[in-house]
């Protein structure tokens, strides 16, 4: 098992390297002149063009540019923002924290509720609750998350029921100071991440409930509550943990549209602002960051999956 995990780790590092190549390639190594693309119509001024090319090190050979950029990125030095001249890392710090807060609250709320719904659906298999939850998850899984957010805004922040603020107002430093502003973004993200968790929990629980050891526990005359909590549930959680990890990885990219919609001051909104302003170093830093989170979480999910699989755990250690 250690060998398998080491293999996955090595592979993860290789993936991260490729990811960095893609981010760099898509932004800085394109045949078109990035400086010209950034300045757009203002590119007519050769002095500004030259200054920007200097700032982005565009006059160096491509390989050296990449090396310098990567060496900086490893120690979290992504250069300076083209808007305001602040170091990118300093600019992103509070925003990352804001996004992480949002994601963490979502995870803490969504994961247990989704697992409970899935487990309950399995216990009520083919009854009304099961059919309803199956239909609802199918519907919610399909709708793009920004549309879910808009529907929630329409329902809860406009018209008859104006109980919550439609957009976030405030800085990224104190996102926890006004919890009512977090409700809609968290609710939207929770609805977006839950369906796969619910479905996996239901499937996994059904499999466990039909297993022989649960039957045996029932035949021994154990109370149903003990059977479910002591025997069924702990064994059903393994495969679900992997899905939860994958959904958390998805959150890293999924927050972009939601932060844009709710005007939430995290990395997603920062990315959209950077794209609007063609702020190259910030675009590079944020996309790399999201991809790294995604890769690392996927890797963890893989390892969790390996660890939860008794065959792998026992056989090749």
């Amino acid at each position, binding site marked *: 098992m250690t060998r398998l995990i080491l293999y996955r780790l090595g592979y993860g590092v290789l993936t991260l390297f490729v990811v960095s190549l893609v981010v760099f390639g898509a932004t800085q190594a394109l045949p078109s002149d990035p400086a010209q693309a950034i300045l757009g119509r203002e590119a007519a001024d050769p002095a500004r063009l030259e200054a920007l090319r200097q700032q982005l090190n565009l006059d160096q050979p491509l390989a050296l540019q990449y090396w310098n950029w990567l060496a900086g990125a490893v120690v979290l030095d992504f250069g300076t923002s083209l808007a305001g001249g602040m170091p990118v890392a300093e600019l992103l710090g509070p925003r990352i924290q804001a996004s992480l807060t949002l994601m963490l609250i979502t995870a803490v709320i969504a994961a247990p509720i989704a697992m409970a719904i899935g487990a309950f659906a399995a216990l009520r298999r083919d009854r009304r609750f099961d059919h309803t939850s199956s239909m609802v998850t*199918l519907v919610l899984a399909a709708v*793009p998350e920004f549309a879910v957010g808009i529907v929630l805004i329409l329902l809860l922040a406009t018209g008859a029921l104006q109980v919550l603020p439609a957009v976030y107002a405030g800085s990224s430093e104190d996102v926890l100071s006004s919890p009512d502003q977090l409700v809609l973004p968290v609710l939207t993200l929770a609805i977006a991440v839950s369906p796969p968790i619910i479905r996996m929990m239901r499937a996994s629980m059904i499999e466990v409930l039909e297993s022989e050891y649960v039957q045996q526990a029932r035949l021994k005359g154990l109370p149903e509550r003990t059977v479910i909590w002591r025997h069924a549930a702990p064994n059903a959680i393994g495969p679900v943990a992997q899905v939860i990890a994958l959904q958390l990885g998805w959150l890293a990219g999924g927050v972009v549209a939601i932060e844009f919609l709710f005007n939430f001051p995290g990395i997603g909104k920062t990315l959209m602002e950077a794209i609007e302003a063609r702020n190259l170093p910030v675009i590079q830093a944020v996309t790399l960051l999201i991809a790294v989170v995604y890769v690392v979480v996927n890797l963890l999910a893989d390892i969790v999956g390996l660890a939860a699989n008794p065959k792998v755990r026992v056989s090749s250690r």
Partner: protein
Amino acid sequence: MSTATAAAAPGAAAPPRRPGLLRTAWRYHRTKIGVVLTAAVLLVAAVGPFVSPYSPTEMAGTPNATGIDGALFGTDNVGRDVLSRFLHGGYTLVAIAVLSALAGVAAGAVIGIVAGYLRNWADELLMRTNDMLLAFPQLVLALLLLSILGPQVWLIVVIIAVSHANRVARVVREATLKVVEQDFVKSAEAIGLPRWRIMASEILPNITSPLLVELGLRITYSVGTIATLSFLGMGLQPPTADWGLMINEGRVAITVQPWAVVLPVTAVAVLTIGANLITDGLSRASIGIDRGVEK
């Protein structure tokens, strides 16, 4: 195409699946509901431009007005007729989504079949490259490329098709691995059919079920991703009438003029829900059991 071998070989190995799949899928209520929902939205998208009272870029009144004569759902943030823009805004989204899904599934099918059948270094290379591509969240990769190259329709189609292709390839490869083991493929190899013929006329007809399911799934995702890109301002550009873009333009005035957002959001939601219901029906039918099947 050698219709003789194509028809005879799969027929001998398993009962013909294709008509069966659609018919089985149709038995589920969700498939019927899905077809009705999808058809309704497609109808709006296809017929809309011909029945709209105004042109999508024509001024119809003061900005963000509701309850005015001649504009059923009022005007948008610039003063254009919301209904007309809604009726014009569907076909681009549907066309781009279907095109990129088709391209992605086709490319994924080719990659998956080749990888699953040849099972040599090409397989290893293709699948490992795939894994690397999977390391990027689809939306973030699209944003990264579009932000620098500029939002262009062909680029959106290519990006979405590529990110679909590697996900489809995984599924198709798994399906191919199962088919390759079967006797009719071995017999085709024994009589010396060229490999591309085996892949095209022996393997492909036997993996149509997972392919159809994938197509449905990919169309659902394409609609969602493209609508999201437009909503983020990275898809179709103003003054085009487009559902995602309409939501972007209308969201600021959502309290005064909700219709400019309600109509396109409803259309996008209904379309994705419909497509997903059909996909779920297909996937249940293709796995061949009525219960306990999860996507």
